[in-house]
């Protein structure tokens, strides 16, 4: 009752004023809970960027600035401040776009590092391949060199073997092969019938080394006149030459001389010495 009596004196006029004031306050309240139109769009764009890990990495500062601008744009404004709201939204929107662009630029720059790393890797691979190729080339060259060396060593060995077989003597003029007088009948320039092993070996040798010139020299002992002996020695050398040509040796490689008893290799005083002096020497010249 006391309370009612306390309320009673309040006049109608005062109630009206209170109502007007409170409704005005409520209206102000209602206005302050709404963000300006368009701010949601900007917020949406910003959120999308914020959720992109690349953008978070590369545009951290710009996103923070944009966030501040968007927050400002979301500030509620009175109905009379549409221009300010539009301005704030514009600024926020452009700052979001700037953040996006800067993030994209930095992302591209980061990719560039990767690209150049890739390129370097490709170059390195190329160089490695080249180096490997060069190494392989060198190796094969070396091995072919070794092969060549081995080959020539083997050839030399074979040749030595043949020379040994020929019982030839290496001199500075070349290989000297001495065919004894057993080839010929006494006083005759004709080769004895049948095959002579030394001559067969000589044919083989000359065929195997076709680039060598040969000199066939006839020698005699001092029995008989010098002219006779020279003619005989020459004819015997010619016989050997004919034999070789008949066995397929190119005639151009063979030259002939007869020295008679001018160049003895032993004393003509003994029978044995004279026998040694009666001979045909085949000089196989050293390769030029």
């Amino acid at each position, binding site marked *: 009752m006391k309370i009612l009596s306390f309320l009673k004196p309040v006049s109608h006029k005062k109630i009206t004023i209170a109502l007007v004031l409170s409704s005005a306050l409520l209206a102000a309240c209602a206005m302050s809970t709404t963000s300006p139109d368009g701010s949601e769009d900007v917020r949406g764009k910003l959120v999308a960027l914020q959720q992109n890990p690349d953008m978070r990495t590369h545009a951290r500062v710009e996103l923070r600035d944009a966030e501040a601008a968007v927050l400002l744009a979301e500030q509620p404004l009175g109905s009379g401040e549409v*221009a*300010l709201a539009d*301005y704030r939204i*514009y*600024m926020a929107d*452009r*700052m979001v*776009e*700037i953040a996006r*662009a*800067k993030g*994209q*630029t930095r992302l*591209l*720059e980061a*990719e*560039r590092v990767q*690209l*150049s790393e*890739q*390129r370097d890797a*490709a*170059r390195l*691979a*190329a160089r490695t*391949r080249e180096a490997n*190729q060069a190494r392989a080339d060198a190796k094969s060259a070396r091995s072919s060199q070794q092969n060549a060396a081995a080959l020539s060593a083997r050839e030399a060995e074979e040749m030595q073997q043949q020379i040994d077989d020929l019982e030839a003597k290496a001199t500075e003029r070349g290989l000297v092969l001495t065919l004894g007088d057993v080839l010929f009948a006494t006083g005759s320039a004709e080769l004895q019938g049948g095959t002579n092993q030394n001559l067969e070996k000589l044919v083989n040798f000359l065929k195997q080394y076709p680039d060598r010139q040969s000199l066939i020299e006839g020698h005699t002992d001092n029995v008989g006149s010098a002219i006779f002996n020279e003619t005989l020695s020459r004819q015997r050398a010619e016989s050997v030459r004919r034999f070789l040509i008949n066995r397929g040796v190119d005639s151009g490689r063979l030259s002939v001389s007869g020295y008679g008893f001018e160049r003895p290799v032993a004393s003509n005083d003994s029978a044995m010495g004279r026998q040694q002096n009666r001979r045909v020497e085949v000089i196989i010249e050293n390769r030029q």
Partner: protein
Amino acid sequence: MKKHTIRQAAERCSFFITVLLTTLTLAACASAPLPPTESLNMASDAIANAEQAQARRYAGAELEEANRYLENANKAVEAEKMSEADRLAKQARVAAELAMARTEVAKAAAINREMGRSAKALDEELQRQGDQQ
């Protein structure tokens, strides 16, 4: 005596009026809007930077927008709408900054494309060499 008092009162009154007028005049002067020089300068600088970076070629629309805002800002200054001019100048600046940022994206993308092309060419070249071997 009475006359004297009236005169004194009149003098005091005119003094107050003078003081009041002076105050009003000063107040009017103080609130006379100044052009947003700083914002305008910053906008001009941002536009110049963007132009320097060839924004006309890579982000022409954005640069155009910045120029338009700056123009409007200057018009607002002439119309003595200084707070509007300030906002327009700031919009011009942010637009120019966006033009700059987009120019940089375009340039960076062009460089990457070129690098990608040359890396691809190199790869193909190596592939050929590899095939030859």
